[in-house]
C-alpha cells in the first residue's frame, strides 16, 4: 500500500509549496493589479484602470522599448560569441577544461558583483577612460555609461560578459553530440572546414539554439540587479526595463496597483515565449518515444 503511493507522498510537499509560493503569489499579484492598492495591498476592485494608466505612462513605453533593444543585442551577441567560443574550444586544444572554466566562471558571480565591477571599469572618472588618460592617451573617450543614448549598451556588455560562457557550454554540448561518422564522411568527400561548419554542424544545432534563446530571453526580461547596480535606471530613466519599472512603482512610488499590472504584463511576455517552447518540447519528446 505504502509502496504504491510513495511517489505521490514524496512529491506532495514540494508541489504544495510551489503551488502556494509561486502560483499562489502570481495569482495574488494578478488580483492586486485590479485593485486600487497604494502603499499596502487593498482589495477595492477598480477594473482595468491600472492597465489603462500603465499604457498611458511614458516610463512604461520607455521600459518596454529598452527591453526590446536590450534583448536583441544581448541575445544576438551571446549566441554568436558563445557559438564562436564553443567552436574554438572544440578544436581539441590543450588544457581545454581550463579555458572552459575561465569562460564559464563569470556565471558563478552574482549580478551585483558583475555590475559593480563593470560600473567602476566603465566610469570615465575612475575606470578605463581615466587609466588611458594616465597612460598619456588624452583624447581617449569612453563615457557610454554616462550618456543617455549609450548607457543601455553598457548593460548589454556586462550582461554578455556574464552569460556568454553559459551559452558556450550549451553549444559545446551540442557540438559534442554531433555524429562524428558524418564529419569523417564529409572530410573524406573533401569538404573544407568552413563548409563542414556551415552546412553540417550549425544546422544540426537547431535544438540547442532554441534552448539557448529561451533561457536568454527569460534572462533578459528578469534583468534587474545589474541595472540597479550599474546605473540605477539612469541617466534619467534611460536604462529602465520593465523590472525596474515594476519595483519603482510598487515600492518607491506607492502605486502598487500599477506595479502589479506591470508585473502581470511581464509574466504575459515570458509566457508568450516559454509556452510555445514547452509545447514544442513536449511534442518532440513524444516523437522520441
Amino acid at each position, binding site marked *: 500500500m505504502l509502496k504504491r503511493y510513495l511517489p505521490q507522498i514524496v512529491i506532495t510537499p514540494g508541489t504544495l509549496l510551489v503551488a502556494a509560493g509561486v502560483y499562489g503569489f502570481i495569482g495574488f499579484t494578478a488580483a492586486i493589479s485590479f485593485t486600487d492598492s497604494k502603499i499596502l495591498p487593498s482589495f477595492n476592485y477598480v477594473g482595468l484602470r491600472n492597465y489603462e*494608466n500603465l499604457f498611458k505612462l511614458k516610463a512604461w513605453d520607455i521600459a518596454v522599448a529598452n527591453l526590446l533593444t536590450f534583448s536583441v543585442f544581448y541575445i544576438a551577441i551571446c549566441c554568436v560569441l558563445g557559438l564562436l567560443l564553443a567552436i574554438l574550444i572544440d578544436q581539441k586544444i590543450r588544457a581545454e577544461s581550463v579555458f572552459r572554466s575561465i569562460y564559464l566562471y563569470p556565471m558563478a558571480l552574482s549580478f551585483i558583483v558583475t555590475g559593480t565591477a563593470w560600473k567602476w571599469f566603465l566610469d570615465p572618472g575612475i575606470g578605463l577612460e581615466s587609466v588611458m588618460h594616465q597612460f598619456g592617451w588624452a583624447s581617449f573617450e569612453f563615457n557610454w555609461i554616462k550618456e543617455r543614448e549609450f548607457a543601455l549598451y553598457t548593460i548589454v556588455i556586462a550582461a554578455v560578459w556574464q552569460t556568454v560562457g553559459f551559452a558556450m557550454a550549451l553549444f559545446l554540448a551540442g557540438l559534442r553530440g554531433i555524429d562524428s561518422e558524418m564529419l569523417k564522411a564529409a572530410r573524406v568527400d573533401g569538404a573544407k572546414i568552413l563548409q563542414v561548419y556551415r552546412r553540417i554542424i550549425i544546422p544540426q544545432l537547431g535544438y540547442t539554439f532554441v534552448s539557448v534563446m529561451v533561457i536568454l530571453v527569460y534572462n533578459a526580461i528578469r534583468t534587474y540587479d545589474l541595472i540597479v547596480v550599474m546605473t540605477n535606471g539612469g541617466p534619467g*530613466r534611460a536604462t529602465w526595463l520593465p523590472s525596474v519599472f515594476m519595483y519603482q512603482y510598487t515600492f518607491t512610488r506607492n502605486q502598487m496597483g500599477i506595479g502589479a499590472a506591470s508585473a502581470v504584463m511581464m509574466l504575459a511576455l515570458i509566457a508568450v515565449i516559454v509556452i510555445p517552447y514547452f509545447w514544442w518540447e513536449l511534442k518532440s519528446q513524444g516523437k522520441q518515444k
Partner: protein
Amino acid sequence: MKKYMTSGLLAATTLTTPAMAEDSVEVLHWWTSGGEAAAVSVLKDALEAKGVTWNDMPVAGGSGEAAMTVVRSRVTAGNPPTSVQMLGYDILEWASQGALSNLDATAEAEGWGDVVPEALQFFAKHDGHWVSAPVNVHSTNWVWTSGKIMEELGVTEAPSDFVGLLDIAKRAQDAGYIGIAHGGQPWQEATVFDSVAIATGGLDWYKKVFIELDAEAINSDIMVTALENLGAYRELVDDNFSGRDWNLATAMVITDKAAFQIMGDWAKGEFVNAGEVAGEDFQCWRVPGTEGAVTFNADQFAMFNVGDDRKPAQAEMASSVMSPEFQVAFNIVKGSVPARIDVSDEEFDACGRKGMADLKAANEGGTLVGSQAQGHANIPAVKTAFSDAITAFFNGELTAEEAAEEMADTVAIAQQ
C-alpha cells in the same frame, strides 16, 4: 542525533528573540554619510545614558527610497521597527494605514503643541493625534559655495537673481574650476528644481503647481521657462555628474573643485564634519530669487505600532527626540534647525542662525512651504510624477514642452 539537532534549533530560536528586550529601541534610518552618522550618534548617546539600548538599522540611500522598502516588508511581516526616520506624506500615508503609534500622552505632558511650528504639526499628527516626533527642519533653497573660489572671483555677496548665480558658475568655469557641483539622481534634480521654480514663477505659482496641482499651471509657459532655466543650470555641471551621490557633490565644493552646489542644508553637516567654518571656508546663501521663501522638509521619527512591551522605550525615545538639549546638539551637527521654536540660537554658527531666523520669518509671513522634491508638498506618487519628468528633461530625454506635458499627464494618474 536528530533529537539534538531539533533541540539545538529550538534553542537558537529562543536565543534570537530576547534581543528585542523591553528597554531597547530599533531605529531604521538612512543617515549614513559622515555628518549624518555623527548626528545620529548624538541621539544614540542620549538614549543610552537613560539605559535604553539602541539597535541601529541604517539603510543607505538619500531621501530614503531603499529604507521605505525595508519598512514595508517589516510592517507587512508584522514586525515593525520601533521607529523609522520619515519624511512628510510618507508619515501620513502610514498613519492612515493604522501602522503608527499614538504619542498623545508624551506630547501633552511635554507641551509639544505649543513649541512645534504649525506647518510641521500637519505632518506629525494624524486625525489630531501625534504619531511622530519631529527632529529638525531642513530647507532646500540653499546655495553652498566654496570660499576659496568666491574669493578668487571677487564675489563677496549673493547675486540678486538666478541668472547672476549661473554667471558665477560660468566665471568659475573660465577660471578652470567645475561650475556647479551636481549629483545626477532624480531626487537631487528635483531638489534643485524647487528653487528654480520659485525663482522663475514666484511663490504663488509654486503653491499652485506643487500643492494645489492646478493642471493649467503645471502645463504652462511658466513651467517651460522654469525648465529652460534648469537647462541653463545643466550646461554648467561637469560631464561625470550622472548617478553621483549628493555628499560626493558636496565634497567637490569642500575641496574647492567646484564653485557651488544647490542643495538642502544637510549639506552643511558635511562642511562642518570636514572642519570647515561657515562664512570663511564656505558661504550659505538662499538661492537668489527665492529669498524670503523657505521650502522646508522635516525629518521625523515616526513611531510604529509595536507591542506593549516595547512601548515604554518608544515613549522614552520620543521624549528624548523632543528635548531642547537634543534638538540643539543634534541640529548643530546635522546642519538643520530645531523643530521647536523655543530654543536659543546661541550655539549655532552663522548659517544655522540665518536658517533659524529665516524659518521664523517665513512661518510668520506665510512663506514657509513644503519642499516638492522632499515629499512635503504632496503625496509620494505625485512627488515622483514630477521628479520623473524633471529628470527626463535634465538628461535630455524630453524637451521642456514635452516635460511640462508629461508632468500634467502623470500627476493626473498619480492622483487617482
